[in-house]
């Protein structure tokens, strides 16, 4: 082998040279792609006669939106449309997360119950709902509700002051009084008290080996608070009942049917994953943990609460948050049934009207990315905190 080819060979086999070469080449290729994308974008937009930039946001939108929780009229600009969309997405996400947690945990625990029939029933529910596309489920709920419910002119009366029809569920409007804020303050006090009682009872147990019935005390406090809220409900809120009038209702607030269909479909779909996760994490706690806790003479209720659940929780929380995120992302399928979420009003109607595809898609994706990144940063921090310390 000649001297020259040896030198080439040694450069070729040098890891550092290779690393720099590979990465340099990747960057070069990406720069070329990006440059051509930008050049093409300006050329294409000019050909279509659409300027590039975010100035369109201050233009008038000129279309109505079915559900607006902030001030919005047809003369509002596209920034308002964007925020209406973001808020509508957030509302579905919050309602869905609440409902999915309740359903998911209930089913997950029922899945581990002693009743054979209940166990089989939950398995059937999980296997059916998780193997059917969520879009289909949303369409199905929407179509079923529309078939079953009566027309707006002859609504179904729920209780004395709620009306359900294919258009919406009309519920009484609740306006908070000063007492509401007092009760809110008391709620904070309640949380602090519970936290303090728990800490005190743990310290007391560590010092003396005797237990204080902290759970009973806490449940009692919460019970008193709930009773107070129920008794004083009429004083905490001013209740404005909806009154049927010629066109719709005066007073009261509307919950549109699309919202109900979407929230239920999303919750029933994602609850199957949460249920399986809850079961898996309780079962994943090593059997020896439970057995040794029992062998030490701990009461079975204690075994569950201070030995099994804390360990199960550690593996439940990350997938749980993952499901919350997936639910939020899947809420974008609202566009299929016309619920005015971010994708539907902003990436849908606003995009069609202005033609500013790049800017609008950029903003829409940025919103979802913000949600995801925030959650994953929190999750990483949490995982580090609860991770088992291994050598």
């Amino acid at each position: 082998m000649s001297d020259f080819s040896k030198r080439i060979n040694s450069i070729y086999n040098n890891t550092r040279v290779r690393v720099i070469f590979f990465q340099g080449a990747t960057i070069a290729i990406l720069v070329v792609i990006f440059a051509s994308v930008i050049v093409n974008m300006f050329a294409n937009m000019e050909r279509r006669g659409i300027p590039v930039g975010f100035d369109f946001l201050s233009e008038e939108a000129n279309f109505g939106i079915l559900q607006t929780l902030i001030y919005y009229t047809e003369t509002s600009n596209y920034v308002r449309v964007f925020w209406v969309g973001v808020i509508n997405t957030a509302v579905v996400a919050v309602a869905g997360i609440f409902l999915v947690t309740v359903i998911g945990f209930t089913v997950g625990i029922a899945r581990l119950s002693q009743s054979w029939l209940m166990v089989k029933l939950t398995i059937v529910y999980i296997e059916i709902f998780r193997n059917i596309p969520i879009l289909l489920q949303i369409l199905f709920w929407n179509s079923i509700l529309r078939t079953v419910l009566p027309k707006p002119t002859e609504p179904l009366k729920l209780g004395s002051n709620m009306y359900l029809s294919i258009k919406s569920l009309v519920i009484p409007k609740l306006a908070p009084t000063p007492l509401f804020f007092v009760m809110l303050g008391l709620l904070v006090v309640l949380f602090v008290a519970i936290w303090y009682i728990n800490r005190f009872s743990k310290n007391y147990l560590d010092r003396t080996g005797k237990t204080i019935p902290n759970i009973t005390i806490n449940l009692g406090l919460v019970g008193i608070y709930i009773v107070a809220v129920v008794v004083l409900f009429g004083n905490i809120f001013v209740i404005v009942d909806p009154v049927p009038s010629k066109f719709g209702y005066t007073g009261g607030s509307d919950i549109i049917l699309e919202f109900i269909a979407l929230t239920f479909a999303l919750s029933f779909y994602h609850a199957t994953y949460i249920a399986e996760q809850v079961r898996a994490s309780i079962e994943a706690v090593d059997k020896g943990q439970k057995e040794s806790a029992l062998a030490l003479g701990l009461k079975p209720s204690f075994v569950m609460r201070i030995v099994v659940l804390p360990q199960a929780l550690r593996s439940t929380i990350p997938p749980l948050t993952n499901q919350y995120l997936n639910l939020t992302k899947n809420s974008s399928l609202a566009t299929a049934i016309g619920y005015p979420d971010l994708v539907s009003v902003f990436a849908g109607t606003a995009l069609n009207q202005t033609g500013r595809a790049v800017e609008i898609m950029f903003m829409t994706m940025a919103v979802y990315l913000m949600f995801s990144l925030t959650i994953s940063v929190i999750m990483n921090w949490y995982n580090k905190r609860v991770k088992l310390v291994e050598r």
Partner: protein
Amino acid sequence: MVERNYQAENSAFKELPDRQSPIKETSIGYWMRANLFSSFTSLLLTLISLFIIAVVIWGLLDWTVLKATWTGTTQDACDREGACWIFIGEKFLNFIYGYYPQLLYWRINLVVILFTLLIIPVTLKRIALRKRLLYGSLLVFVYPVIGAALILGVPSITCNVSDPHPLCYVPTTKWGGLMMTLILSYVGIVVSIPIGILLALGRMSNMPVIKMLSIIFIEICRGVPLITILFMASVVLPIFLPPGVEFNKLVRALIGIIFFQSAYYAEVVRGGLQAIPKGQHEAADAAGLNYTQKTYYITLPQALKIVIPSIVGTSISLAKDTSLVVIIGLFDVLAIVTTSAADSNWLGFDSEGYVFVAFIFWVFCYSMSRYSYYLERKYGIQKH
């Protein structure tokens, strides 16, 4: 179970009487007592489930069977009290083949038969691994090309309606139905997995630039809903391409799906790579293997074996997610059913259509998940 609480003051142990040996009972009464009403909560749960089962089963049976209409040819035959299965029967071929010319259905059937012939040897345990790998690679590399060519036909021959040439050209706008769903799922899975593996290796790489780029790609694709990526592919991608270069809708949808899904596969594979003990890497290094050899012979095979169940799980989500292409105007099985229910001859039979599509998806997804469960047990992958 003995539930004793030895408190601090009972320091001296008291001897307990011996426990009786467990009674062996196998009667139905015993089973019911143990599994249905062993405690008050259990009894309550059993009663609740009985109630739910009664209500749901009765409602479903009433609608799908008892009050349903099974015979007839037009919507007038249905009384709308129960399900109208004539709708499904009349539109069935549409749901499966989309708007594909009826006289050319055999081409699609041939593609399906070819798939079955190739997949059977891959899953059979009896055949040597080497042969199974051969069939597998045929399925991944050669089959899609043959399949696409067969379904598409020869571009220079146009189809006439009454007597089409057997190899005439059927544009992708005529594709649809279950066939479209299967094409999207299959191509999505076959192309996304290799890209996902590369992305996972990129994310685990020592090269900072490659690592950073992989992370950015994966996190962006996983952080946004699929529907926005499909919008990107259908609305924004044409703007980014040079004037004159155009993809058809199907290709754009596939690009969107592949971007999205490869990021998910990447995270699954990364999970597997991270689960491999450090010793494997160190041993490979010590044996003098270079990066390619180490990845190909040592780390990747082990990682893939661990993540087979998760890969199947991700593939199931992909199959379900293909239904979203309706939003950018492709006619998969769900879209065809929705459109058919808006047909003036068959107005308002959405529910029947949805039940039908739900059943199709359920059969596919459930059998895939059962297969993954089987693989998991076969390869002895322990959860803990």
